[in-house]
């Protein structure tokens, strides 16, 4: 049995589209990802139960919070107490533990991953540390002095810490902070243009399929993701796995089958594994064939317009990646 995948960029058509083989590939990749990594988001493995009706609404943790089981939901604190705690934190704690509780310049540890804080139920553990200090911190570092505050104030501080802790995101990620403007356009436009002419222009053109692509992409990252993958730009914040399910458009994958009797079948490849292959044949019909028997398929010749993009993944340097992105970002 022979399977040939032909590469290259056939014709001059628009190629910045997902194709069937790519989608087959991607759907299975997603399947693998779902059962694969332990550290995938829980939603990738099993639906996470929704918070039932009647769950705390006002001040509730954002949807991305890790604790979605009712028994893991912490009721929101009294807003006035939390606000009081925030003021006390700013005065007493912030210098060491940071304005975002993730540790500060004076060496205080990150409170949002602290075992004391995460295990604390109602201030009982946090108050011990506040009132007695940490002369010998378990994690080493700068000792913490005692803060002889009133019980109500210590409680308010713990309520504030819990309020911030509630906004931690899935998989241990910190609360969403202020959006930082990160400039990913570090490449050289002229070098990107040269690379494009040498490697991409056989299929793509600035005045054709790529016209305005920098405007269609929400940002430079979405533009870069799209051109490398060979698919349309995604919306901001799109799930990286969801990208796999982008609608099938654009050029189909064509396949030519050589049958056991020497005749050939040609059409659009629908599905292929080691044992069967199915086509929409050129006359419009559906046909499937076994690959491992007689009368079966002797050879499969696949003409995959995405082969060039797959090849690119193995040879593209990060420098060329950034240069081409900088060039494409000029296609407003």
């Amino acid at each position, binding site marked *: 049995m022979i399977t040939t995948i032909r590469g290259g960029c056939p014709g001059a058509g628009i190629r910045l589209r997902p194709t069937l083989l790519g989608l087959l590939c991607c759907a299975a990749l997603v399947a693998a990802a779902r059962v694969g990594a332990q550290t995938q988001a*829980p939603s990738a493995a099993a639906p996470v139960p929704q918070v039932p009706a009647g769950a705390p609404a006002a001040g509730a943790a954002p949807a991305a919070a890790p604790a979605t089981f009712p028994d893991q939901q912490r009721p929101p604190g009294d807003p006035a107490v939390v606000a009081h705690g925030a003021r006390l934190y700013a005065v007493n704690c912030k210098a060491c533990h940071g304005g975002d509780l993730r540790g500060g310049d004076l060496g205080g540890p990150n409170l949002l991953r602290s075992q004391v804080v995460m295990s604390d139920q109602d201030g009982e553990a946090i108050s011990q540390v506040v009132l007695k200090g940490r002369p010998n911190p378990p994690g080493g570092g700068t000792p913490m002095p005692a803060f002889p505050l009133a019980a109500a104030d210590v409680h308010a501080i713990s309520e504030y810490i819990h309020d911030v802790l509630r906004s931690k995101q899935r998989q241990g990620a910190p609360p969403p902070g202020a959006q930082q403007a*990160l400039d990913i356009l570090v490449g050289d436009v002229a070098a990107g243009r040269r690379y494009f002419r040498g490697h991409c222009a056989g299929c793509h053109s600035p005045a054709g399929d790529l016209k305005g692509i920098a405007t269609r992409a929400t940002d430079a990252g979405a533009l870069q993701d799209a051109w490398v993958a060979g698919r349309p730009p995604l919306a901001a914040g799109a799930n990286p796995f969801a990208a796999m399910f982008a609608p099938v458009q654009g050029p189909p994958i064509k396949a030519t089958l050589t049958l056991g009797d020497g005749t050939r079948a040609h059409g659009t490849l629908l599905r292929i*594994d080691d044992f069967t292959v199915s086509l929409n044949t050129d006359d419009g019909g559906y046909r499937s064939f076994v690959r491992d028997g007689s009368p079966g398929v002797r050879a499969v010749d696949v003409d995959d317009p995405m082969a060039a993009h797959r090849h690119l993944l193995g040879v593209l340097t990060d420098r060329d990646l950034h240069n081409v992105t900088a060039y494409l970002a000029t296609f407003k």
Partner: protein
Amino acid sequence: MKLRATCSLLALIAATAPAWLLPPRASAQAQAQAQTPAPSAAPARTPAAVPARTLPPVLPPSQIDGPLAATWPTYNGDYSGRRYSTLRLVDKTNVSHLTLAWTARVDTHEPEAGHAPDAASTTVGGEGTGGFPIGNVAIRGAVLQVDGILYITSTDHAWAVDGRDGHELWHYFWNTRGGTHIGNRGAALWNSSLLFETPDDYLVSLDARTGHENWHVQIASLDEDYFSTMAPVVVGDHVLVGTGNDSDSPGFLQSYDPRTGKLQWRRYMVPMTADDPALKTWPSLDAARHGGGNTWTAGAYDPQTGYYITGTGNPTPSYTGVARPGDNLYTCSLVAVKVDTGEIAWHYQTSPHDTHDWDSAQTPILIDGEIDGKPRKLVATAARNGYFFVLDRVTGKHLVTSKFGSTVNWARGLRPDGAPDADPAKSATVPGSLVSPTEGGVTNYQPNAFNPDTGLFYTHENTAYQLLYLTDPDPRGSMGLGGKRFAIVGAAGNGFEAIDYRTGKITWRHEWPGRGGAGTGVLTTATGLVFTGDTNGNLVAMDAGNGAFLWHTRIGNISNTPETYLIDGRQYLLVAVGDTLYSFVLY
């Protein structure tokens, strides 16, 4: 119906008889009750105990090891992790005659979503308040088979099923408090106790004959975001349990008394005190104490040395290594732990200073083989980072490294100690770096196999690429898996590989058409067969020598790993697809 003695009959009674007829609880439970109760043990809602009778144990620990043959008594079948069956009834000439014996969908006994399971046929345990649906049930772990009975788990559920026809004998439901419900990788048997972990961090002991609960004990803190998926490993009077965590909490391996649920020892996989020699691989004790290194996949056990060899998880925060310069021991390592004491005998780091969430928590495989003409006791692993390693399992000495992931591009080469030398430019960067593999790795937890007759180590190979962006350049690092964004941008062509353990070279490779990824592991046999799932829903049998296909059947994407065993002298092949078991047999 011909009556069979002991457990299977009793289990059958348990499934069909009224409560007063239920067989006695295991003698182990009586012993447990006679001793100090386990910490935080709580009685399950089960019928009152009836007078004890003497019953032979389902699986004494002394019968666990040995060549993998009639039973499938542990996660890997035996302690070696080879997943090499010595059964010979199914061979290359007749494997195509395998036929479906039965198929069965596990029953959660939930009359409606959101309600407690049907109490008439289910034992309910757990500390949660319930009242909400858990979601899809999928069998991702090993199924144990002893004396014709199958023991099956998924998150918050356990079942016993008759291996002859797939009908249910008992069901146990764990009412969860929460935790990451990503899967359950199987149970362990100790005498007549069935032991498994829950996502909310309990170790539960059931009477394997009835599904009634003996005890449960909390093994980690749910508040600190631990979640537990590992199939426990029984070694003598130890049950070894691991946990997972994505929130910068320290990883550890623990040993419990399988009789009582009492903690015997806890071994952290990151330095927790200032006198730990591994602390020099961390910038501070605080960083080490939040450094990850979780043990969430069953390891291998070497009875000759008494070492339990486990892979450890990634350091944390995962993607922002700026906060933890250094190699970060003992994360992403193979670690040999003395079972009696929890001491580390040796360690070897397969991914120093990982910055890609590539746990080295793959099941290692023990090989008695030859390197350079000399007989050696070896341990091998195909790591999630795309590199294959062989060590001396007595000393931990490094012998072989090879790159088995054809697309792997994140290392500049190998260090003198044989570990990959990570290229900092292939960590998450603000303008994006093109990295293979993706977060899921070239391999993951799905168990590989080794066949001593071919000398080949079998593994799937994932070849996907990602663009990996640093979104939080804070010099303090991010937290957990935060601070990055990735986009999966394609794959070169995923495959299945047979690796020569002596050199690490790939003897043969098959590329799956359609370019999917497989979510299953591998089984091999003394008759020269390899069983696995392809990337398009086929269960396949291959020639272990050259990868030629000998049989296939399309039943859907296999969610656990193929197993084989004997019942009534017939050889079976068992796999799960989601919530459904498929049992094949050679008549």
